[in-house]
């Protein structure tokens, strides 16, 4: 029997694959296409304290092996989420992770408080969204910012607390260590890399917001490197993501030190990418004689 289950500081996943925030809606959008009960967890669309409409369209541009997005956190607000979305998700055998973003630290704290009393399994702090003018981006790219927000939210958060890091920094290790020392239960990374694509015939950026966040296969080598660096620097679990489309991609992250992975952009192309990825991890373990996923995690040998 191959055991795929992992325990992220109390967030117990039956397999290490989580749908990445913003790419899987609130789960229900994928019900027609895949079996939600076979996904370890779902990190829902980034939530804010109040409903948000997000940025002007176009909000997406395709780039080589990647996409830029500038959704700008369109969401119904944390209360509507608790009321309308948790009941649906709870019917499925998968863990619910609430991804939250705020304009102020107080926003984050209030959301953590509300969500701590709701029926979810973990909270993911999005301190790194590049698509909103003021607010969260400022917290994510300095040690001081990340320390401050982690510490304050920690005191309101009674659920496993995952801090999601932005890759747009000089040294990802120091940011991760700051989150760890202020009480994060886990680190997830990477969020999107800031980028821009230009319509050369209109001579304007393709995105109405001008810049957006890069995700998809293109970013995978950067993400694997950062996951490796972070998992060597902290002792809390690391959740890796960035360009994962299948089991083989996921294995790269897990060898590099990720205890779990998130699948994002790939869901757009293959709506059962999460389930396929979990299946692929299992097949790899079978092929290489692993019975327990923990034997795999971090087992990379350097040259």
């Amino acid at each position, binding site marked *: 029997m191959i055991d795929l289950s992992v325990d992220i500081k109390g967030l117990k996943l039956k397999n290490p694959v989580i749908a990445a925030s913003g790419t899987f809606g609130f789960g229900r959008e994928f019900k027609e296409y895949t079996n939600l009960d076979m996904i370890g967890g779902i990190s829902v*669309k980034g939530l804010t304290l109040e409903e948000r409409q997000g940025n002007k369209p176009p909000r997406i541009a395709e780039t080589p092996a990647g996409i830029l997005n500038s*959704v700008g956190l369109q969401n119904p607000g944390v209360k509507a989420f608790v009321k309308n979305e948790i009941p649906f998700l709870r019917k499925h055998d998968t863990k619910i992770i609430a991804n939250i973003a705020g304009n102020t630290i107080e926003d984050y704290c209030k959301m953590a408080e509300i969500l701590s009393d709701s029926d979810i399994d973990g909270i993911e702090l999005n301190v790194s969204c590049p698509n909103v003018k003021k607010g969260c981006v400022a917290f994510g790219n300095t040690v001081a910012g990340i320390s401050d927000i982690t510490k304050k939210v920690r005191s309101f958060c009674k659920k496993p607390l995952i801090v999601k890091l932005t890759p747009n920094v000089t040294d990802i290790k120091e940011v991760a260590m700051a989150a760890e020392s202020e009480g994060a239960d886990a680190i997830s990374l990477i969020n999107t890399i800031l980028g821009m694509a230009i319509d050369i015939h209109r001579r304007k950026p393709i995105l109405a917001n001008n810049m957006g966040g890069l995700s998809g296969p293109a970013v995978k080598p950067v993400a694997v490197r950062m996951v490796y660096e972070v998992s060597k620097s902290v002792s809390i679990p690391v959740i890796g993501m960035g360009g994962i489309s299948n089991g083989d991609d996921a294995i790269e992250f897990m060898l590099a030190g990720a205890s779990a992975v998130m699948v994002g952009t790939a869901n757009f192309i293959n709506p059962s990418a999460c389930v396929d990825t979990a299946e692929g991890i299992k097949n790899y373990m079978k092929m290489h004689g692993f019975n327990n996923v923990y034997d795999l995690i971090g087992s990379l040998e350097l040259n």
Partner: protein
Amino acid sequence: MSKVLKEKVERVEKLAESIYKMTIKSEYITQKAVPGQFVNVKCSEGINALLRRPISICNVDVKNETLDIVFQIKGIGTEYLSQKRIGSQVDLIAPLGKPFDTSDNYKNIAVVGGGIGVFPLLYLLNKMNTAKKSTFLGFRNSNYAVLQDEFKEASDKLFISTDDGSEGYKGLITDILEKELESIKYDIIYTCGPTPMIKKVVDIAKKNNIKCQVSLEQRMGCGIGACLVCACKTGNNENWKYSHVCKDGPVFWSSEVIFDD
């Protein structure tokens, strides 16, 4: 219910410079689809043209279990799609989106299309069997004026215009629509095409107090309502929100949509 399907390419036909018709065998789609819906198609294997591309269903042949999509080459996705071989598989999610209102109550309809916006309208016309149908199609020039026989067949009256007069009337197709409206009253106008044309049609419908449905385009990620990238403003100026073309549309009532983005 839509599904991820791997279906067989039956035919690829070049209709004009850069415009292709692809016939796809699909029992599922031909049974489920209704006019206004689209397919979201992976144009190339692997990471070339990474995202799926939305293409309207242009026609459905229920008996033969085939559907047609017609597309113009705009970039790499449609380029790869045009190169698909007969007999090869095509990976699509379909049918998607909210359809046109094809109620039998509409006895006299106008269908107004421009450019690549004409394609979903053919399917609509073919389905509206009991109505009297006037079709207005605008193209850049005669090279782009494809599927004329099919549109003629499907319509009671067909008007064509081109920007340069190389086919049909010279000028805007909305001018012809306005002229027709002097003598006829339609129960509904359906429109799809470039935004300036749609806006004009919506204005005309409003002025004439005619119901109007528009089919919109927006760049998409997932096509299934999850990623929220395909936003379009709906509601009214005091109380608007971003709806989503893939799930709430592509067909909207003209009264719902705010065209200021």
